[in-house]
């Protein structure tokens, strides 16, 4: 995110921006910062203007507008403006961009993080095995492919009987 040819002042401004964005959270999943979520694709400074590229998770996700506004507001508030937000859709967002830190936070929050094994299981035509974020059991069942937000599916653990959200692979 930080280009090498930047002078120290520019570098500092971007480093500060990254620190600020660590505090901007996803409105639907408040434990995740926008950096954990992997939606901030690039930041650069051209003619004093701070450009921030944001990619949508799902194209119709209503949280995206809120995320854009909170990113802009947070940067302005920290005195890092002027800011210009761009929406980029290529390359398309993937759950692979959720940071390891983000995965851990999701699990602690009670949401099973996206599981690459799921994608492989699907390719083979097998039913994916999603571990329960509470008890760790893999004896779980999908209740609905579509959960409370566009990015989640709804599961139930057959061992501890708790329902939980699964952040589906995308």
């Amino acid at each position, binding site marked *: 995110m930080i280009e090498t040819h930047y002078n120290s002042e520019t570098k500092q401004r971007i480093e500060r921006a990254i620190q600020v964005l660590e505090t901007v959270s996803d409105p639907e999943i408040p434990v995740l910062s926008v950096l954990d979520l992997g939606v901030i694709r690039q930041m650069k400074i051209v003619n004093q203007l701070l450009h921030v590229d944001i990619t949508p998770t799902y*194209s119709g996700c209503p949280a995206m507008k809120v995320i854009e506004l909170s990113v802009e507001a947070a940067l302005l508030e920290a005195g890092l403006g002027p800011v210009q937000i761009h929406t980029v859709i290529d390359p398309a967002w993937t759950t692979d961009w959720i940071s390891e830190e983000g995965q851990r936070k999701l699990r602690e929050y009670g949401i099973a993080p996206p599981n690459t094994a799921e994608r492989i299981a699907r390719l083979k035509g097998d039913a994916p095995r999603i571990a329960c974020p509470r008890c760790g059991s893999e004896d779980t069942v999908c209740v609905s492919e579509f959960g409370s937000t566009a990015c989640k599916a709804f599961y139930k653990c057959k061992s501890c009987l708790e329902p939980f959200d699964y952040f589906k692979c995308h």
Partner: protein
Amino acid sequence: MIPKDHLFDFMLIHADTSLIISQRLSEWCGHGPVLEQDMAMTNLALDHIGRARLLYQYASELENAGRSEDELAFLRDELDYKNLLLAEYPNTDFAFTVTRQFFLDAFYIDLLDKLSGSADSRLAHIANKSLKETQYHYKWSSDWMIRLGDGTEISHEKVQNAVDRLWEYTGEIFQPAECELGMMEAGVAPSYEELSDSWHQRVNSVLAEATLKKPQSTWQQKGGKTGHHTEHLGYLLAEMQYMQRAYPGLDW
């Protein structure tokens, strides 16, 4: 080079189809047969709204006449909408909604896959983004076709009835409009003959697993892509456009 108006028309066919099916699916909000499916259908609606926006934004830039995505979506008259007739067919019941979705998803899953390698890079990016979402839609709609078809006597009867009734709206999907022919020629859109073959393969295999019969009738409706719609679209637009018509420029 493809003429810009061909690209523009092509964007409208698919943006309108996404917008209209989204409006239909949204009608289920709060009325789903069970909570999980109520949420599933509104999730589908949301993805379609998102796709429609990306396509309208592109269409608006192509047209370059100062019409915004909102004006394209909300301020045209019925004759200017180019959506597939299938998308405007009323929800009727859950079996109709699932069947309508399945017929559309079985088309879009292959169309978007092909378009993600299109020579038009903006279209390719939109297709690539939407394809990921459509894979979930297809899984949902094909699973429910099988579950209802191979379910109880009543669910079987209902979904077979929906298949029989909606069949006449499926032929239009593969009858290329002028803009689509132009885009195929330029290598920007895939061949609809090929798409039709893969659609039939998907439909045959899901209907067989669902123990449903494929309709034999060959007579097909057409007109959506050229703005000749069924009587259902006008009512839908009246409801959908009400706010923008009553309060021009309304934003939130």
